[in-house]
């Protein structure tokens, strides 16, 4: 008896689903109050490598229209039947077809689904996906790149020609020798922490270039060096850098491969490991250079508690306040990238620093000019309709690539 009831229920539910399904898939008649996607346009996506067409539409509704449940996008090439290529939510009025063939001309239909059925739009104009040879939206970046590279190369050439270049003092870098010297006097090791990221992070690269200079000092003084790493690629690179540094000062036999070692990729596992090393080995100098996140203060404070001299540096503005508060010396932002040039004292390297300084001055002038022009424009016409305000707004939009 129970079995029959179950079968009857299933049959009833099946019939209900079929009826419901046929209602949902039913095309609505033209001229009804059904909402409809209109003004469907299809255009090649600009500044891409081809294969993408952007479809957009407007939604025409009346007060009596039933609500839209979703949009379905159909695509067809000449002589083909429309095929569904995707769906979007009822709140969207655009879609990107990323699977268009480069040489095929397509037209698109947007099918508007409601609870009562669906209605198709008028087909869009024909569109062809093409690849561009230049991303026009990145023109400001190209100009900036040319200016930056041009300025840096100009000063490198000047430096090669023997020009005297003045570089301001960076206390954090001047303290490197003192820190290593103090560790040597105390007979304690130097701990170098190159951050938690891999070599694709530019901050890690900067940290590795500074490691070479620190390793040379350490090798000259015969001070033990510890380099715990959070990434195997950083570990192998750091091992080679330290080995090379020892070789350059004629101390190859003193190089201990186990001084550069891998701990773990896990952020807080690495933090716990480095903290443990600090507490057990009691390094006299701790270098925290590279990419750091939430662990920055934990490491810096532990180093402070063991009485070590701390030299830190990162480009992460969210972590800089922690380093400034907890460490003896902090390399702020660009200083970490300047460190290698500063420490090497090579004219060519210093030339690159002068080049970036010139661009920085240019940026400051540009910001001040735009602020003054914008303020004058606001004074002339507070609603932003003056020619000056519009010019400033256009310049700002162009510079940000909007």
């Amino acid at each position: 008896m129970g079995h029959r009831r179950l079968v009857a229920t299933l049959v009833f539910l099946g019939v209900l689903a079929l009826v419901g399904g046929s209602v949902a898939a039913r095309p609505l008649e033209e001229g009804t109050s059904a909402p409809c996607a209109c003004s469907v346009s299809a255009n090649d996506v600009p500044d891409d490598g081809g294969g993408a067409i952007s479809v957009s539409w407007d939604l025409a509704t009346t007060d009596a229209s039933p609500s839209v449940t979703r949009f379905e996008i159909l695509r067809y090439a000449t002589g083909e039947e429309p095929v569904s290529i995707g769906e979007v939510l009822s709140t969207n009025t655009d879609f990107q077809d990323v699977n268009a063939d480069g040489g095929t001309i397509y037209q698109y239909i947007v099918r508007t689904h409601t609870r009562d059925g669906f209605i198709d739009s008028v087909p869009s104009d024909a569109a062809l996906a093409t690849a561009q040879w230049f991303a026009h939206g990145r023109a400001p970046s190209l100009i900036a790149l040319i200016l930056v590279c041009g300025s840096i190369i100009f000063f490198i050439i000047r430096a090669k020609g023997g020009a005297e270049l003045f570089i301001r003092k960076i206390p954090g870098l001047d303290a490197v020798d003192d820190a290593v010297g103090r560790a040597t006097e105390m007979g304690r090791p130097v701990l170098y922490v190159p951050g938690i990221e891999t070599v694709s992070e530019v901050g890690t690269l900067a940290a590795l270039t500074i490691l070479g200079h620190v390793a040379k000092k350490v090798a000259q003084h015969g001070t033990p060096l510890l380099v715990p790493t959070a990434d195997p690629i950083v570990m192998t690179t750091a091992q080679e850098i330290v080995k090379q540094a020892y070789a350059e000062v004629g101390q190859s036999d003193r190089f201990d491969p186990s001084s550069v070692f891998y701990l773990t990729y896990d952020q807080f596992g690495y933090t716990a490991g480095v903290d443990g090393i600090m507490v057990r080995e009691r390094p006299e100098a701790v270098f925290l250079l590279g990419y750091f996140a939430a662990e920055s203060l934990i490491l810096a404070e532990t180093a402070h508690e063991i009485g070590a001299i701390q030299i830190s540096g990162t480009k992460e503005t969210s972590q800089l306040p922690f380093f400034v508060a907890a460490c003896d010396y902090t390399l702020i932002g660009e200083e970490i990238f300047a460190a290698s040039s500063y420490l090497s004292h090579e004219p060519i390297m210093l030339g690159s620093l002068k080049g970036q300084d010139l661009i920085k001055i240019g940026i400051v002038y540009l910001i001040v000019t735009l602020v003054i022009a914008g303020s004058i424009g606001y004074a002339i016409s507070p609603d932003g309709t003056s020619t000056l305000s519009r010019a400033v707004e256009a310049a700002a939009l162009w510079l940000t690539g909007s």
Partner: protein
Amino acid sequence: MKRSVPLIITFLTGFFLVVAFFVPHEPFGELEQRLLVWFAIVSGFTMLLGIDNLIRSHARRIARTNTGWGHSIVLLMGLVVTVVVGVIGFSRLGSPFHIHSPFMFVYTHVIVPLQGTMFALLAFFIASASYRAFRARNTVATLLLISALIVMLGRIPIGAAISDFFPAAQEWIMDVPQLAAKRGIQIGAALGAVSMSLRIILGIERSYLS
């Protein structure tokens, strides 16, 4: 030769990646994505190097009975146990990341609480570092102390209850001087990164090469 080959590879890779940023057309368009896949493959294999290094250094420490050699035993046991439970989860449930696998049990009940414990230490370190940083030793430190007090009071209900000045002042501090300084540092850091990248691409910066 030992140095010139890596320098040539570095120059060509850097140059073509810069070109790819501005030229979306084939063959440049997908160059960055393709190189990222290569990087992922290489970094996957280097993980073996990392594990090898980890095992060797801790095995050496145990063999020499160095200070803290007991910790090394715990670490190696943890490594072995994690691998074993991962293999068990894979063989029994098809994936070590299955919700009922022993690997996920270890992850949820050992690794996550340990991570949370380390992160929680941050609260105490913030207190001790703030105490040192906020001591009014000179004008700059005094300014730091005053702004920190205003920001802290402006961000908690009691600040608004005392005076409307605190929420408004903290908003101004965060939106004007703080943001200006932050953006200044970011512009400088971005230029520094470009400069360093250029030095590496042109082969001027070689300290990362052995």
